[in-house]
């Protein structure tokens, strides 16, 4: 009895251990496939994560939005940020709500600064993983580029049901991986 119980629970655990990563993959794959595409203006900097490898940290241009009327917001509160596209094709947050929007694309954002007429928000777009040696170069490539021309780095993001998956990082319409490769030559 005891042994059967252990084996039963053990198999349950194994299914759970596989199930968590598989569901993580499935959610992102379906967002990448069926989500709406947006471009977010950003600046890349290079940090490091002992477990997950090297990534460039993304500083998305949007960090403040107008405070909605008649709503009390708290630090760390989750809100819904409705997305719109400006004349340059870059994504903007048109407004934030505490109720889930019925239509249009939106992201779940966190309040970082709750008082004042403009509140601070944090969008769930903060890192782009790159190859070990490429990541430190990304920042350099970006700096060189923004000195020569205007600052036009952006990330492409797929958005579905408030959930965002970062697809690619571009510097002046060139994928960062290609820009680094050209830079190396």
């Amino acid at each position: 009895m005891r042994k059967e119980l252990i084996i039963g629970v053990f198999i349950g655990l194994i299914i759970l251990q596989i199930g968590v990563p598989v569901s993580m993959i499935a959610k992102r794959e379906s967002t990448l496939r069926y989500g709406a595409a947006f471009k977010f203006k950003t600046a890349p900097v290079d940090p490091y994560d002992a477990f997950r490898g090297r990534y460039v940290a993304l500083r998305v241009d949007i960090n403040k939005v107008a405070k909605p009327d008649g709503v009390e917001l708290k630090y760390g509160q989750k809100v819904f940020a409705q997305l719109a596209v400006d004349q340059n094709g870059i994504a903007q947050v048109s407004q934030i709500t505490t109720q889930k929007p019925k239509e249009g694309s939106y992201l779940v954002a966190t309040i970082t600064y709750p008082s004042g007429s403009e509140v601070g928000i944090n969008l769930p777009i903060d890192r782009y993983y790159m190859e070990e040696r490429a990541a430190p170069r990304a920042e350099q490539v970006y700096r060189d580029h923004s000195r020569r021309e205007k600052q036009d780095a952006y990330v492409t993001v797929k958005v579905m049901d408030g959930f965002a998956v970062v697809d690619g990082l571009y510097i002046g319409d060139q994928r960062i991986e290609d820009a680094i490769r050209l830079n190396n030559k």
Partner: protein
Amino acid sequence: MNKKAVQWLYKELPDLVSKGVLPQSAADKLCEHYGDIKSMDKKWFVILCSVLGALLIGLGIILIFGHNWEELSRPVRAVLSLLPLMIGQALAMWVVFKRPESQALKEGTATFLSLMVGASIALISQTYNIPGDTPTFILTWMLLIVPLAYLMEATIPAAIFVFGVSAWACHFWNEPLKAFLFWPLLAVVVPHFIWSLQQEKYTIRATILALVMTIGIFIGAGFTLGRSWPGAWIIIYSSLISFFYLLGAWDFKGISTNWQRPFQVLGGLGIFAMMFMLTFRFPWDSITGRYSYAPNEISSWAAIPDNILTFLLVGGALLLFFQYAKRQDWMRTLFGALPLLALIGYAFGGTSAVFPMFMFNVYLLSVSVFRLMTGIRTNSLSVINTGMVMLSALVLARFFDSEINFVLKGLVFIAIGIGFLVTNVGILRRKGGAA
């Protein structure tokens, strides 16, 4: 099993047989029962090797994937991130079904599988640029591996879990209610710890886990307790380390060396460190809140679980202290008096730091002198030496203390020096009288 005791027994056996205390057959049976001492060593060596091997291979795999191979397409990476996990599971499953009696294999494969669960989630985070929500990552990982401690009777997953939940709690220093979940999470491994104590009180398994738990609790306490009143850490850490020390010093049956008392060893070290720290001004200044950060709007009801646990902890430490005092175990009573003195110091510290500082200087001085004397009386070099170290630390710290003026410092040094000489002469006289 207590190796030293068995060694002693084996040394005694021939003598016992020759003197007719035991018949030869009984001696043989005893040898058979306890087995070879060497083989006990070998067993642990095998377990250690398999754990170290699993740890290194697992960490190596994490590092190789950390390189983030650009050439691999997304679907390939998705499959690759599940692969090490499935290999780990297959190995663990094989052991559970086919070799459930091998401790080394169980410990090793459980360790490997624990790391691979983390590797798999980390790889997926990398492939899909998942935002850096580190606490969620850690907690998911930890909850997925902690059952292995029970299902595979493996201690390393439990140890990883303790480190993991401590690291998790560190992320919520400004959210006390969330951070407090550290304690129920920690409680998840307690049955495994008790089980490992029952299994083999005298061996490395329980010791490792005890070490890890002590460190984890020290970290966790800093982030979860006493968040609502500045300077409370003085009382909390004093109570915590005294609690560990006195609990570890309790005379459980069959423990023979200090290495089997990790709680006592770490607690003792901690008590010394704490006493020493409290002879300075800065801890007492932290009570007035002059240098402390403003606690992030911790409302009164959010602090309730914190306060209850703090109260229980202080109460528990004091209760143990009185137990030792009742048994007249003076050395441990003296060490265990730390929380009581911390409470007194805290009560005065808000108005002036001078009195608590003075009190702790006297306290550390008395403890180290008492230790020295006890060491001399019982002829124990290690006790003498630790007493000396404590005393030298105190003397050095005060000698370089810029806060006290030179004349006063000089007078106190001379007074203590004379005190030593007088006691010394007294002891010599008494010895001479006795001889």
